[in-house]
């Protein structure tokens, strides 16, 4: 019996079981399903946010970047910390608005704040369009890690099919609670895997992480300063990218929506304080990437660095453990992405766009049906066209970043108007789309999304100052 296989399948099955169990004896309504009845305390919120932020691709990608690019990978440490600091100031105010008006999603916020259903539908569509490639990336990461960890015994497609169908089941039954509970398993396993490998590998090959860095500085010191082993990722790139991704981070509809599930605004604040500690595992991942750089320099695909090094260093059962951890680490964000994409379509496109009189039960039923639809659609794409959507991810990230002025000004500036936000948003997204699709990213040395955001912010303010909105609309 292939022990790695047993560990991987057992973990996927147990996780799905826990996810389904999480929703038992809870009377499901939209509030319970999408934001877990706003009942999460500090631990669950932390796990949930860490669960959706630190994905399989974060781990493979961070070690891959440390391996192939070097110092530019450090931007991951920077932007996450920026985002958490920002969330300390933004999310509590957002949570209070969400609580007061019973909001569930990001478009709900736009609809309430700007009294415009068309703005809500527009934001929802951009959100769904951005989520799909992100979801795709999770599926690809899951298939990849299980296939490699099982030494090819499970094909990537079989792993994706099994894990994602089970994910779909627990999202359907338990909603956000399911994702949060599975996040507990995910975090324990992932931290164990990263801890063992990240501390173990430099010690095994060099004696200590410090000695590993000594060897690296003797071999190729320029790998450890900007722009590392890349031609164009210098300080300017690192700064504009870290700033853009830091600002845009909480603008992802699923991260934004998860904030509503906290019990109070204080919980959100405390969460922002402790989130940066979760960056420390990233440091360990960098250790792995750098060790791989020294030990297996002939490796072609940087994303393989972590797995290849584990394969060479540890027994097969541990490889199975890493594969299992990778699989759950993809299931949690996938669950949250599917959940919010479904709610966006049912509540903010269907209900807000076409049937404002639809009942809440109808919206919940439709959301659940959309879970099945999106799952099928994503599986279809993942298996038939595995590589087509990856480029859209950059577009998606730069796209959701454009929500920033509408969200933040909406919270803290009374004068901002619907027309202002709409104008900024449309122009910002148009700029991003044109620059990226015509291959002009980076533009003038800056991240294309950053260019869009600057124009967007300027237009939002300028147009808001020259238009007026009814007084009753402010929150």
């Amino acid at each position, binding site marked *: 019996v292939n022990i790695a296989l047993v560990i991987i399948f057992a973990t996927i099955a147990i996780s799905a079981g826990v996810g389904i169990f999480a929703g038992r004896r809870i009377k499901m309504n939209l509030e319970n399903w999408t934001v877990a009845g706003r009942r999460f305390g500090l631990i669950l919120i932390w796990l949930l946010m860490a669960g959706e932020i630190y994905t399989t691709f974060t781990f493979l990608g961070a070690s891959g970047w440390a391996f192939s690019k070097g110092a530019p990978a*450090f931007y991951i440490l920077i932007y996450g910390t920026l985002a958490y600091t920002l969330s300390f100031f933004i999310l509590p105010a957002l949570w209070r608005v969400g609580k007061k008006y019973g909001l569930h999603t990001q478009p709900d916020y736009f609809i309430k704040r700007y009294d415009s259903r068309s703005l809500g539908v527009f934001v929802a569509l951009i959100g769904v369009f951005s989520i799909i490639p992100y979801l795709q990336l999770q599926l690809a990461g899951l298939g990849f890690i299980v296939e490699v960890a099982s030494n090819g015994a499970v094909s990537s497609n079989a792993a994706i099919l099994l894990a994602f169908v089970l994910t779909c089941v627990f999202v359907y039954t338990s909603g956000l609670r399911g994702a949060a509970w599975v996040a507990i398993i995910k975090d324990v396993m992932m931290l164990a895997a990263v801890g063992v490998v990240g501390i173990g590998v430099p010690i095994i090959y060099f004696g200590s992480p410090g000695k590993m860095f000594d060897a690296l*500085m003797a071999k190729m010191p320029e790998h450890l300063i900007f722009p590392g082993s890349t031609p164009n990722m210098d300080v300017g790139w690192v700064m504009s990218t870290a700033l853009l991704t830091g600002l845009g981070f909480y603008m992802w509809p699923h991260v934004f929506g998860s904030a509503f599930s906290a019990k109070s605004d204080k919980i959100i604040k405390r969460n922002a304080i402790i989130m940066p500690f979760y960056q420390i595992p990233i*440091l360990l991942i960098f250790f792995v990437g750098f060790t791989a750089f020294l030990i297996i320099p002939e490796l072609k695909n940087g994303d393989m660095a972590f797995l290849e090094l584990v394969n060479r260093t540890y027994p097969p059962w541990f490889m199975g453990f890493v594969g299992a951890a990778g699989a759950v680490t993809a299931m949690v964000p996938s669950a949250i992405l599917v959940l919010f994409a479904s709610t966006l379509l049912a509540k903010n496109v269907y209900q807000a766009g076409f049937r404002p009189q639809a009942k809440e039960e109808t919206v919940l039923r439709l959301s659940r049906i959309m879970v099945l639809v999106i799952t099928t659609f994503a599986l279809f794409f993942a298996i038939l066209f595995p590589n087509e959507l990856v480029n859209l991810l950059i577009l998606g990230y730069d796209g959701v970043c454009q929500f920033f002025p509408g969200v933040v000004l909406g919270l803290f500036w009374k004068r901002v108007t619907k027309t202002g936000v709409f104008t900024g948003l449309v122009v910002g997204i148009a700029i991003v789309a044109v620059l990226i699709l015509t291959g002009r990213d980076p533009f003038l040395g800056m991240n294309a999304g950053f260019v869009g955001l600057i124009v967007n912010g300027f237009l939002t303010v300028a147009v808001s100052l020259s238009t007026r909105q009814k007084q009753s609309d402010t929150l």
Partner: protein
Amino acid sequence: LDPVILGLPFLLFWILLWVVLTPPILFIAYLLEKKLNRSDEGEGE
């Protein structure tokens, strides 16, 4: 690249230092905010 601190190259150490300092700084902000709110509105937690 120099100096090497705690075995880490300086750039990595510097970035990491701020990552680790962020939680205590935010915690101080949290405490200050609580104190100011209390004296403003006389509202306890």
